């Protein structure tokens, strides 16, 4: 059905955007996102994609343009990284509150200062509570597939929310991977045309983005929270149908060799594939270790996570962002919270690793598991540890 190719993952993201037949692209170049928009601008310039390409003067404007174009019913796309994301963050929150299903790829990169163009999750964690549906991709195929899945889910009348596809900057964005592209017919079967229920139209005026007073703000936020939570069935349905179409089935929490595992590594994003190697090595030595990979970050899949995690004795959670002076990395903090009311819950040991693309090799995961087992016997020394730091 599809075409199997070797392709840079950024270009694969662009191919997916083209196949989604978007109407508007607005983006500002920033490393390591640049190749995605460069390729899209070529598609538009050479007539392969009939879309408006708006070369905006900042990321703040990029998200403003995308929100405006979605509001008139145009399928819109942007992508960014790091400083660009936090510059656009003001509008990121408006886009979700106004229920405009923009799709954004983030090539995840550290935040300044010091300046780092390399990969971790500190950028997207700064907008964790922005109200977008958020996926983390593990490889190039995930990225390609999830751009298409994001439009399908976001534009679902039962959802109407913007969607972020996170992919690791450089470690994913700049590598060439074997992946399967879908043909246009398949995409068209999976992704119907965008039909918003309300659009900005002078003939039928409406007001979007108005003020509400303290008498109503609470109710609007409750409605928004419920919208994100209740998007789960549509997400699962889209994954199911995508799987039926392509043979690639995705799940909110994906387990690897979890059967009977006493220790579970927990990862999010591209390091999951390295962790699989580490699990294989440990399993070969007879150790009871498996892996959980979080694919869906928002809405957080509490049920699937608890089902997968509560049988283990230890969770070794690998975070890729720091919450300075806080209770641990954002992932570990949330997992601890999700497990708090469980009658039987595993010990959560949290390592913050892979900041600014520092390599996290299989032997690092093995060391983390060793250390976590020790902590389980001897007691935990701290809520979290920045792993591999020179002292």
């Amino acid at each position, binding site marked *: 059905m599809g075409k199997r190719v070797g392709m840079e993952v950024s270009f694969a993201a662009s191919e997916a955007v083209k196949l989604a037949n978007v109407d508007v692209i607005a983006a500002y170049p920033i490393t390591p996102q640049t190749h995605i928009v460069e390729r899209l601008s070529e598609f538009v310039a050479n007539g392969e994609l009939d879309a408006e390409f708006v070369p905006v003067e900042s990321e703040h404007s990029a998200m403003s343009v995308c929100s405006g174009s979605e509001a008139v019913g145009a399928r819109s796309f942007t992508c960014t990284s790091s400083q660009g994301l936090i510059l656009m963050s003001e509008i990121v929150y408006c886009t979700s509150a106004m229920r405009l299903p923009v799709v954004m790829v983030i090539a995840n990169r550290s935040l300044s200062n010091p300046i780092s163009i390399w990969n971790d999750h500190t950028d997207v964690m700064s907008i964790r509570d922005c109200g977008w549906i958020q996926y983390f991709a593990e490889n190039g195929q995930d990225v390609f597939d999830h751009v298409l899945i994001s439009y399908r889910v976001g534009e679902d009348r039962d959802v109407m929310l913007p969607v972020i596809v996170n992919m690791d900057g450089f470690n994913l964005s700049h590598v060439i991977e074997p992946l399967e592209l879908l043909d246009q017919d398949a995409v068209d079967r999976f992704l119907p045309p965008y039909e918003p229920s309300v659009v900005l139209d002078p003939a039928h005026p409406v*007001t979007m983005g108005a003020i509400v007073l303290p008498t109503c703000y609470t*109710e609007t936020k409750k409605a928004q929270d419920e919208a994100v939570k209740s998007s789960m069935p549509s997400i699962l349905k889209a994954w199911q149908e995508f799987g039926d179409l392509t043979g690639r089935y995705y799940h909110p929490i994906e387990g690897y060799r979890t059967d009977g595992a006493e220790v579970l590594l927990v990862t999010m994003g591209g390091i999951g594939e390295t962790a699989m190697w580490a699990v294989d090595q440990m399993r070969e030595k007879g150790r009871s270790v498996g892996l959980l990979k979080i694919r869906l970050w928002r809405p957080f899949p509490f049920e699937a996570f608890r089902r997968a995690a509560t049988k283990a004795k230890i969770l070794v959670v690998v975070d890729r962002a720091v919450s300075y002076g806080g209770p641990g990395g954002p992932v570990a903090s949330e997992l601890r919270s999700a497990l708090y009311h469980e009658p039987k819950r595993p010990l959560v040991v949290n390592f913050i690793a892979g900041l600014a693309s520092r390599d996290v090799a299989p032997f690092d995961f093995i060391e983390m598991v060793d250390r976590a087992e020790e902590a389980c016997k001897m007691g935990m020394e701290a809520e979290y540890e920045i792993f591999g730091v020179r002292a």
Partner: protein
Amino acid sequence: MKKELDYKWTDFESGYVIPNPGNSREYRTGDWRSQRPIFDRKRCIQCGVCWIFCPDCAIRFDAEGYAEADLDYCKGCGICARECLPGAITMVAEEE
């Protein structure tokens, strides 16, 4: 027209879209006021300077052409009193 406090969280349009735009008139903002303008009809020369300067379009004219404040929207800023050429407007504290 439904009152604000009658809205349950399920009552809003998706994205809080307002399907009947231009309804801000229904929201009376005058209760922020701590002072209000008093108009002296003997001094008013019906020149309309207060109407021009009012930043909130809260000046209107009665049937005889004299200026008065629309207290549903007047914030009591006092600009009209400051600009009134014949000194026909004075500000008094709201509780007076």
